[in-house]
C-alpha cells in the first residue's frame, strides 16, 4: 500500500460534506477515486450513511394533550387573563340544574297539553 495514512484522514474528514453534496467537483472526484481503492474508508462511509439513516427515523409528535396543557399553564400563570373563557364558561354552566329545569319544563308541557289544556283554555263567561 502506498497511500499515506493522512490521506484516509483527509478523505474521512470530508465525508459529511460529501454526503451533504457540498463538495466541489474536483474534491468529490478525489474522494471517489480514493474510495474506489480503499476498503477501509468505504466501510467508514457506509457506517456513517447507516448512522444518518437511523437518525432520520427519530421524529416524534407532541402528545395530544400538548395544546390544552399549555393553555392551562398560561391561564394559571396569567391569573386567568388568558385562555380562561372556555374553562370559566365551562365551569359556570350549571349542567345539573339545566337538565333538571329541562325535565321540569317537559313535565309541565306534558301536563298542560294532556290534562290542564281543556280547563285552562275554556274561558269563564
Amino acid at each position, binding site marked *: 500500500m502506498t497511500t499515506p495514512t493522512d490521506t484516509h484522514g483527509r478523505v*474521512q*474528514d470530508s*465525508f*459529511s*460534506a460529501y454526503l451533504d453534496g*457540498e463538495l466541489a467537483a474536483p474534491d468529490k472526484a478525489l474522494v471517489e477515486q480514493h474510495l474506489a481503492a480503499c476498503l477501509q474508508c468505504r466501510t*467508514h462511509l457506509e*457506517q*456513517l450513511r447507516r*448512522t*444518518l439513516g*437511523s*437518525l*432520520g*427515523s*427519530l*421524529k*416524534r*409528535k*407532541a*402528545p*395530544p394533550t*400538548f*395544546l390544552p*396543557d*399549555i*393553555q392551562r*399553564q*398560561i391561564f394559571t*400563570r396569567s391569573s386567568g387573563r*388568558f*385562555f380562561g373563557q372556555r374553562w370559566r364558561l365551562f365551569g359556570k354552566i350549571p349542567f345539573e340544574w339545566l337538565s333538571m329545569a329541562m325535565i321540569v319544563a317537559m313535565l309541565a308541557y306534558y301536563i298542560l297539553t294532556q290534562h290542564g289544556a281543556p280547563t285552562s283554555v275554556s274561558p269563564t263567561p
Partner: protein
Amino acid sequence: MTASLSERLLLARLRNREEAAFNEVVRLHGDKVFNLVLRMVGNRSEAEDIAQEVFVTLFKSIDTFRGESQFTTWLLRIAANHSKNRIKYLSRRPTDREGLDAMPESVLADHGRGPMHGHVRAPDAVLESAQVDDMMQKAISTLAEDHRLLLVLRDIEELSYEEICEITGLPDGTVKSRLHRARMALKEYLEDKRE
C-alpha cells in the same frame, strides 16, 4: 430574512395576544419543538414539560421578536436554550439520574407512527423500532451538548445550514466541522455497540 405575508399577519395577531393565533402556532410548530427538546434531554416527561415552557415563553415574550431572523428559528432558539438549561439543571442533581435512565421514552409512547396512521404494526416490529430508538437516543446522549444540538437540528429536524447558523449563532464553518465530528463520534459509538 423577509417574512411571508401570512407569517406577518400571524405575528401581528400574536402580539395582540389573540388566543386563536397562539393555538395556530402551537399546531404549526409544536411537533418540531417537542422533538428537538426530546432528543436533547432524552426523556419524555422532561421534554413535555420543557416544550410547554417554550410556548409559554413565546406567549410572554413575543414582543421581543423583532423579525431579524425567521420566526421558526427564533422559536427553536428558545427551545434549544431551554433544553440546555434543563440539561445543566438535571446534571447538578445526581440523585435524580435514575429517573432519566429508568424510562426509555419509546416505551412510554410511540406517537406519530404505527396505529396513528391507520395500521397497527406487528408487536415485534414495534419492539424493534423501540429498541432502535433507545439505542439511538443513548448514543445521542453521549455527545457533548453543543454537538448534540447540531446533530439534532441537521440530521433529525432536517434544517438547512443557514437556519442552524441563525439558531446557534455560530459561523457556517464551525457548524459544519462540529457537525462532522458529532456524526463521526455517533458512528463510532454505534459501531462499538454493534460489535
